[in-house]
């Protein structure tokens, strides 16, 4: 539409790392559907399953796997983007290889506290996805999903489930929490896939 009278906006951030409709923040806002979940590393477990083969990791077992470090930008559907965040964790490819689970098209990720999100398995295995256990050199704070969260940096952050508890692979697609509540099924920031009809 025509310009809004007298709206100038901030100085332009000419940065090809900022997807459309996003603005850069130096903070790390907290977005959670409900209270922060209080789960200690000693109670925490992660199960990876395809319905036939499954493997459950406790904190020590997860940390015994090969760790990877990643510096990446993250994008929240509520319009903020945070550049150059650094994460350490276990790449999903490493985890799936270790668990020996089969090749299925869809993943449903569940959290402590009953949160769920869905995504194609290929978005876990052919991008930079990991089970993250450290953020910017320190343990991940509970409000940001510690002790362990999924990180899928190329999709909006609601896919990066906090307090991750299970990854279930299937040949059928089930919708997760926000996906069932009117958000986009896939959530690509570069295509601005915020809501179901985008």
């Amino acid at each position: 539409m025509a310009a809004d009278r007298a709206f100038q906006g901030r100085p332009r951030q000419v940065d090809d790392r900022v997807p459309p409709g996003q603005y850069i923040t130096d903070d790390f806002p907290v977005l959670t559907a409900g209270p922060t979940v209080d789960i200690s590393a000693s109670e925490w477990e992660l199960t990876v399953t395809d319905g036939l083969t499954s493997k459950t990791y406790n904190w020590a077992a997860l940390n015994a796997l090969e760790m990877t470090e990643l510096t990446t930008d993250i994008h929240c559907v509520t319009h903020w983007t945070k550049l150059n965040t650094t994460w350490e964790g276990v790449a999903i490819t490493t985890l799936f290889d270790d668990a020996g689970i089969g090749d299925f098209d869809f993943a449903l990720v569940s959290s402590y506290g009953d949160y769920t999100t869905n995504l194609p398995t290929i978005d876990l295995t052919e991008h930079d996805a990991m089970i993250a256990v450290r953020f910017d050199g320190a343990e991940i704070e509970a409000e940001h999903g510690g002790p362990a969260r999924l990180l899928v940096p190329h999709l909006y952050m609601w896919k990066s489930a906090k307090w991750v508890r299970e990854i279930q692979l299937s040949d059928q697609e089930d919708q997760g929490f926000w996906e069932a509540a009117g958000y986009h099924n896939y959530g690509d920031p570069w295509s601005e896939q915020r809501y179901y009809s985008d």
Partner: protein
Amino acid sequence: MTNLDTPPPRPVATRTVRRALSWRHATLADTIAETDTARTLIFDIPDWDGHIAGQHLDVRLTAPDDYQATRSYSLSSGPSEQPQITVERVTDGEVSPYLVDMIEPGDAIEIRGPIGGYFVWEPIRGNPLLIGGGSGIAPLRSIWRAETGTRAIVLYSAQTAERILFGDELAAGTEVDARIHLTRATHPDYESGRIGADDLQRVIESAPPDVTYVCGPTAFVEGIASYLVNLNIDPRTILTERFG
């Protein structure tokens, strides 16, 4: 860890047929100066067919060089009222100063919505408890205007008496039973200091809620939600919206 025999508040089916969420031209119909730093904007939106209490709008502004900025604002109107948002000016903000200080009735503005199926109230959710910090009171007004069938209890934390939004409506008390806390001032009509675990316990014991809505700055929501969990409120019945 939690009481597992209460079903979680699953997202509700908001419409049997979902309309495409496309950008629309709204016209600013009227404004209400709520405080020195907050203004309510009432819109005329073509083909608006109501919303569910708690939903939000996305607002998009366009500069002369086609640069655009988009933000989300909770609707503060009840489901059957003309759509409105209530905006608090954020220091150094990009969009809120324009909405609070510059846009005038008759101006066009791009919006889309209503949006959201989580932080919403419908009769199936039962008796709500509403807890707001600062401008986090805005979506809660939408809920208490939704004819909940009871006088909704509202716990509201504001910095000073001058910063209270919807003060007359809260004081009138026809739709709400409000307890207002001031965190940076004292005033004979209001409680002094933050909302504490004991305040929450008294409210919960006198009128156990089916569902609790908490909206405000992150630190406020984190604190209140953790008190509620410690008071054995099922976390799945605590719906939160954080900002800042």
